[in-house]
């Protein structure tokens, strides 16, 4: 979970699925099989292709939850077949929470809070 936008082109390493954007608070975190919560994407539309490439290699996120949808992530989620929901108050989520996402209904449910 991050309150910072993510650029898939240049911000995520297509070789291992780690976030590599230097000033990002998730820098060094691997997105593989995670439910990735962030406000929205930014940067080049090539980012959609990067999402496809990650998913093909099994390095993609399990699902995406966005505050607002943007074209790069929307297109990327479609071609990579990653469940994605938007218009969610992402402030409700904490890194480490157990979350269920139903992409077709557009619902996310927090099943278990991270143990603090």
């Amino acid at each position, binding site marked *: 979970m991050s309150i910072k936008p993510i650029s898939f082109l240049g911000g995520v390493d297509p070789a291992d699925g780690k976030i590599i954007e230097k000033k990002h608070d998730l820098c060094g975190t691997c997105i593989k099989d995670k439910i990735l919560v962030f406000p929205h994407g930014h940067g080049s539309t090539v980012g959609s292709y990067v999402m496809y490439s990650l998913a093909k290699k099994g390095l993609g996120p399990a699902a995406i939850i966005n505050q607002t949808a943007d074209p790069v992530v929307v*297109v990327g989620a479609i071609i990579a077949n990653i469940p994605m929901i938007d218009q969610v108050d992402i402030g409700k989520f904490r890194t480490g929470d157990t979350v269920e996402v139903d992409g077709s209904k557009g619902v996310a449910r927090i099943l278990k809070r991270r143990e603090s």
Partner: protein
Amino acid sequence: MQLTREEERIYDGERGWANQTCMKILVRLGELFGAEKLIPIDSAHVSGVSYKTLGDAPIEFLRTLADSDGRVKVRTTLNPQSLDSQYLRKKVEESLQEPQLDILRQFERMGLTQSLTCTPYYLHRLARGSHHAWAESSAVVYANSVLGAWTNREGGPSALAAAIIGKTPDYGIHRAGNRRPNVTVKVEAKLTDPTKLGALGIFLGKTLGDKIPTITGLPNTSRDDLKQLCAAIATTGMTNMFHTGSKTTTEGAERICVDSDQIERTIEELSGGTGKPDLVFLGCPHCSLDEMRRIAELIEGKRVRASVEFWVCTSCHVRRAAAAYVKRIEEAGGHVLDGVCTVVSWTEKLGIRTIMTNSAKTAYYAPTLNKAEAVLAPMEDCLESTLR
């Protein structure tokens, strides 16, 4: 969104994976931006062609689309690639060429024309008021503002999806009401050459965000000169079009004045290069036939200095039409490169550290995309420092 029965069939996968995926992209984007339906388009223009900017990520997606019978339904042109088939091909290492060729092959399988240009409007005439789905922001602004054709600013994937479906979601400036100016720009600066029009674009892009300006006070400019404004305004902003002249804005709309100081300061900011240029580059956006003639006239009887590379970029289409001018430029020691864009080519691998150009867009991108310093100057000055 309201879909026709055929569109629904495509959406449900009855016309294969490629069509289904493309339809899903268009429908989802349409929903995101409040479109109620899809509208037919006359043409598409796809960006995201250079292997340098794309990397390996899209190749597999493009191949899968082509494998599952993704074929374009409308005339679809392609943006420039990372090298040309003659000059740079001999200079760029083999391992960077094969993936580039692979990308082009996949596009070709889907029926895109290998136009490889950022100025597709020199290849085909666009009817006023006709709808298109173009990526390549400079061409989008030119189509809307200079040619009166209608296109949103697509990304590479959405333009490709529109090409394969032959339609685009009806939102943004496909709707007449959204094409009206909502800010007035009064240019007080004397814009004596096209490079200054480029600087104006860079300044306005930063200031306007996605607003549509009416620009007054422009000198009598040719379409070629306006091309510099189009490219630059799209580089720093999300503006899709501008109006010129006295088209009235909505009452109470914001007014912006641009004076000579602001233009000069913008040129200084873009022109950070201190060293001697090792590349002088004209042709961003790609040169028109008239621009090729102008360069050939200025170069006549002179020679390119041994210490500098001189590149002129254009499309293979214009190159063919300009054969006599190409000959003159090349006899003088310059290189006319077609199908390539300097900004997305491998200049840093050729040891190029300072690029002199008449293009504000190139000057803006050179430090990040080419790892080079830029010197921004009018075409005549560029040639002056190239020739002996």
